[in-house]
């Protein structure tokens, strides 16, 4: 359907007898456009063609001498003269509106984008991901689950199992893919194994190849459009061979599919069918029911209820799981469960272990949305308040017009016209600003909005509605109010002070102050919380620690360690499977005394030096030490305090512990307890952890570098690394940077809320200045008389300030509890919270009162200092 708003405009001006054929043509043309172009393009074209009918032949005869034309051209003249005469006022008004419309437009686009994640699948409301809700919820479940559900449960129409290509330690692995004959090679990190049913569930479009067979043949690979472009350019890719890592020409390209849209919760570069894996190693335990190691997605038949299906799973799945009776019992009792996550909710609401990509969080979007609404509110109030306050000055104009026979309706339309003019100028400017600041905004919120999306009918209508609403609100009140006076009375000269409306203005001012105070105190609290997160002691060292990727296929970790240690810039060195801040694999552990109490523990394989290099604190027992044979054999365990607590161990050291790694059971002894440290981000609580020696699983070298020698040490390290691993690239990063990158979203939110609260203060103060300067103009005589009677400067300042300070006081009383409640709710999203500091509110209150007093005094001081002889002469 073409945009209704455009039709409305057409009806407004188009001749009746031409309307039908014109509308018909436009409609027909729209259908043609719509068939091949995205909606916004078709809408835009519709608007443009519609606007093209603004020609003399089609426009209704308003008549050259009709009142309509003459009146509006005179309104236009009045409006521009008025705006021009009061440059200061006009620019305040316009800047406020432009800021508000721009901010609102941006936030609207951003929210729309974030809320639309994964909705591009045609039946996205029927697609669910199966997650595992245990002690430590995770996204991954067993591979056979997907197809078993399709076979056994009638509600499940299709299902797909997939997994990113993980390296050791379950970190995302970048694979070297090579096109041998052109010698083109890239490290590709977005590779996935997928079931052949991938396209039964997801709607990614096929560009080349046969979707029926593509995922059924072993050693076939499907490329994304952009990856195909990297290797083959515009040439057809299907049938070409690619090398996977060191396996020459192992893969054959069987198809090319479009890139996943930006608003997808995962993005692929290439897909390899599980068929390939199964043909290599049919009995891989990873493919069994024992390994919760795959992402399973279901498409339910239309109209089936996911909750009902979810509740059926435990009873159904128990026959497949080779679990102990205890395990099955707790599954049936609901202590653990398979949960169905709607795919559209994943991006905003799921933040559990092993998300495919880091998701956004709803709580931050909420902050953006509320801030946007507040700014809009503040600036609409500003506009309304200033227009009504100024209208008092136009009393004489109204009086003259009324005596000359102007209708009430005409006055109303004059005022409406004027404010529409301002608000549309503002809208126009903010659309330009949105285009200009598109990139800056995207960087700020890590978003990917497109400025041209404002022409989508939904967005543009929203912007038009707020523009028109603002204008009408600002016009109606003064017009009605001024209309109510008798023209004779007006022309005789009325005391301007008697012209009321100040109650309405002052209450609006109060609302505005409330919004500004909530925003300022809120952003202070957000600031406190985020700096709390960033400065919290994580329980390990991060400074000058360099993390180098280790390709430990040949077990050369000891060799490279000893070689690197010869450099003077390296103070200590260790090898480790996972660095803090990354993802961790987990398995269950239990003690010999109480085998029924199994605890899921994350695992970290470390060498003997890791504990001192990373500065973990041992609270009981000892560190791992190569003097003990059991330590090197991997049967001495370190556990963290949390694990000791969950295992109910009063004296853990010396106890025998079982570590169940998939099908192998490792029996060992606890030799020490590590003080709890935050090995994951502060978004999640500390979970049980087990540490042991296992040289074949080290993925990283962690080196403590002398801060003075960093520059010379890095090239030396690279040289040594190349000696040991000639075929691998030397890639490194610093641990403190890695850790702070975990809080990127927080840093961005902090910056954005600071900017938004800055804007809200600016707008509120601009509004205050406008109101107060008009109020003082009306009190010039009063001030003059008071001065002649002996009032001092400070007495006069107190006089003009009192009313506004009282208003500010009222606003504080309302705003502080509101802000407290809102922010307490927001803080609930965090595992580690910084309690709301009452000082925030005291500081906000003092700052607000001081700022208001200062602003009013600056405006009033000129009038108050003036010689009363001048002010009393004013008439």
């Amino acid at each position: 359907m073409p945009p209704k708003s455009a039709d409305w405009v057409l009806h407004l001006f188009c001749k009746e007898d031409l309307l039908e054929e014109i509308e018909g043509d436009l409609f027909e043309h729209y259908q043609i456009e719509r068939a091949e172009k995205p909606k916004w393009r078709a809408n835009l074209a519709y608007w443009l063609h519609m606007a093209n009918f603004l020609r003399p032949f089609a426009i209704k005869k308003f008549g050259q001498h009709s009142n309509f034309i003459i009146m509006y051209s005179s309104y236009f003249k009045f409006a521009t003269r008025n705006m021009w005469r009061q440059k200061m006022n006009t620019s305040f008004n316009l800047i406020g509106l432009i800021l508000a419309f721009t901010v609102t437009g941006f936030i609207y686009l951003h929210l729309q984008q974030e809320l639309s994640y994964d909705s591009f699948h045609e039946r996205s409301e029927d697609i669910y991901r199966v997650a595992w809700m245990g002690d430590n919820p995770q996204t991954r479940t067993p591979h056979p689950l997907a197809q078993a559900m399709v076979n056994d449960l009638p509600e499940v129409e299709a299902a797909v199992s997939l997994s990113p290509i993980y390296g050791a330690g379950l970190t995302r692995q970048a694979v070297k893919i090579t096109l041998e004959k052109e010698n083109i090679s890239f490290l590709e990190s977005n590779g996935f194994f997928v079931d052949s049913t991938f396209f039964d569930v997801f709607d990614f479009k096929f560009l080349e190849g046969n979707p029926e067979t593509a995922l059924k043949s072993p050693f076939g690979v499907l490329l994304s459009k952009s990856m195909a472009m990297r290797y083959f350019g515009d040439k057809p890719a299907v049938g070409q061979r690619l090398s996977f890592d060191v396996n020459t020409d192992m893969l054959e390209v069987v198809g090319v599919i479009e890139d996943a849209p930006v608003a997808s919760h995962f993005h692929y570069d290439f897909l390899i069918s599980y068929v390939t894996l199964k043909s290599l190693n049919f009995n891989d335990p990873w493919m069994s029911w024992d390994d919760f190691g795959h992402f399973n997605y279901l498409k339910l038949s239309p109209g089936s209820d996911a909750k009902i299906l979810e509740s059926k799973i435990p009873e159904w799945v128990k026959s497949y799981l080779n679990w102990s009776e205890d395990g099955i019992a707790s599954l049936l009792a609901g202590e653990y469960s398979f949960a169905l996550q709607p795919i559209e909710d994943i991006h905003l609401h799921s933040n559990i272990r092993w998300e495919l990509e880091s998701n956004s969080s709803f709580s931050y979007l909420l902050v953006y949305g509320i801030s946007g609404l507040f700014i809009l509110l503040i600036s609409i109030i500003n506009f309304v308040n200033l227009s009504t306050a100024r209208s008092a000055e136009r009393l004489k104009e109204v009086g003259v017009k009324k005596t000359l026979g102007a209708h009430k309706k005409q006055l109303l339309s004059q005022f409406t016209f004027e404010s529409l003019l301002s608000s549309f100028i503002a809208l126009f400017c903010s659309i330009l600003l949105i285009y200009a600041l598109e990139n800056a905004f995207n960087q700020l919120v890590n978003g990917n909005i497109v400025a041209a999306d404002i022409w989508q009918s939904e967005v543009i209508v929203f912007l038009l509605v707020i523009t028109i609403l603002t204008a009408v609100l600002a016009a109606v009140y003064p017009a009605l109010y001024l209309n109510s006076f008798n023209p004779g009375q007006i022309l005789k000269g009325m005391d301007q002070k008697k012209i009321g409306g100040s109650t309405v203005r002052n209450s609006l001012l109060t609302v505005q102050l409330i919004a500004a105070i909530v925003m300022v105190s809120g952003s202070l609290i957000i600031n406190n919380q985020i700096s709390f997160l960033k400065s919290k002691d994580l329980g390990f060292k991060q400074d000058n620690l360099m993390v180098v990727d280790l390709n430990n296929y040949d077990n050369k970790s000891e060799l490279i360690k000893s070689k690197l240690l010869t450099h003077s810039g390296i103070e200590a060195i260790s090898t480790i499977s996972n660095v803090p801040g990354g993802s961790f694999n987990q398995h269950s552990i239990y003690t010999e005394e109480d085998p029924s109490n199994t605890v899921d523990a994350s695992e970290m394989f470390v060498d003997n030096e890791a504990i001192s290099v990373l500065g973990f604190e041992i609270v009981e027992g000892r560190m791992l030490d190569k003097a003990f044979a059991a330590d090197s054999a991997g049967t001495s365990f370190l556990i963290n305090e949390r694990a000791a607590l969950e295992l109910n161990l009063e004296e853990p050291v010396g106890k025998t512990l079982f570590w169940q790694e998939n099908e192998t059971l490792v029996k060992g002894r606890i030799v020490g307890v590590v003080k709890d440290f935050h090995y994951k981000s502060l978004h999640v609580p500390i979970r049980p952890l087990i540490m042991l020696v296992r040289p074949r699983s080290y993925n990283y070298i962690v080196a403590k570098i002398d801060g003075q020698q960093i520059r010379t040490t890095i090239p030396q390290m690279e040289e040594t690394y190349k000696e040991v691993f000639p075929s691998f690239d030397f890639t490194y990063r610093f641990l403190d940077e890695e850790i702070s990158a975990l809080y990127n979203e927080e840093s961005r939110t902090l910056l954005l809320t600071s900017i938004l609260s800055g804007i809200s203060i600016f707008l509120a103060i601009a509004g205050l200045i406008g109101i107060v300067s008009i109020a003082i103009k009306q009190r010039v005589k009063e001030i003059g008389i008071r001065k002649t009677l002996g009032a001092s400067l400070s007495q006069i300042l107190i006089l003009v300030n009192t009313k506004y300070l009282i208003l500010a006081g009222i606003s504080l009383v309302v705003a502080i509890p509101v802000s407290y409640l809102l922010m307490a709710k927001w803080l609930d999203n965090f595992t580690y919270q910084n309690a709301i500091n009452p000082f925030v509110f005291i500081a906000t209150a003092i700052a607000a009162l001081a700022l208001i007093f200062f602003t009013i005094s600056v405006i009033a001081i000129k009038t108050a200092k003036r010689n009363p002889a001048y002010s009393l002469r004013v008439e």
Partner: protein
Amino acid sequence: MKGTQLGEFEELVLLIVGVLYPEAYGLSIREEIISQTNRKVAIGAVHSSLSRLQEKGFLKSELAEATHERGGRRKRLFSITADGKRALEKNHELRNALFNQIPEMALKGLQLSGI
């Protein structure tokens, strides 16, 4: 009657109306102009021209049946009047006569596409 001069674009529209007879209406005329001449034309421009031609008496029109693809709206079908035919012929003759008067010399050595 107003002036009987034909503008360049008006002449084009008039010709296309003839070409498309009896199915000539706003949108189809625009499509035909775009496909035959590669000119970008707005729907509004075509309608404006059509209404001028009708005022001059070169075109007549009637409303057709409502169709679904137009959201139930009727279309206005145009056809050339006797006056319109005469004006086209006049223009055609005038052009041919003028062309034939160009001396051979003036055209010598010019690429055909340069005319």
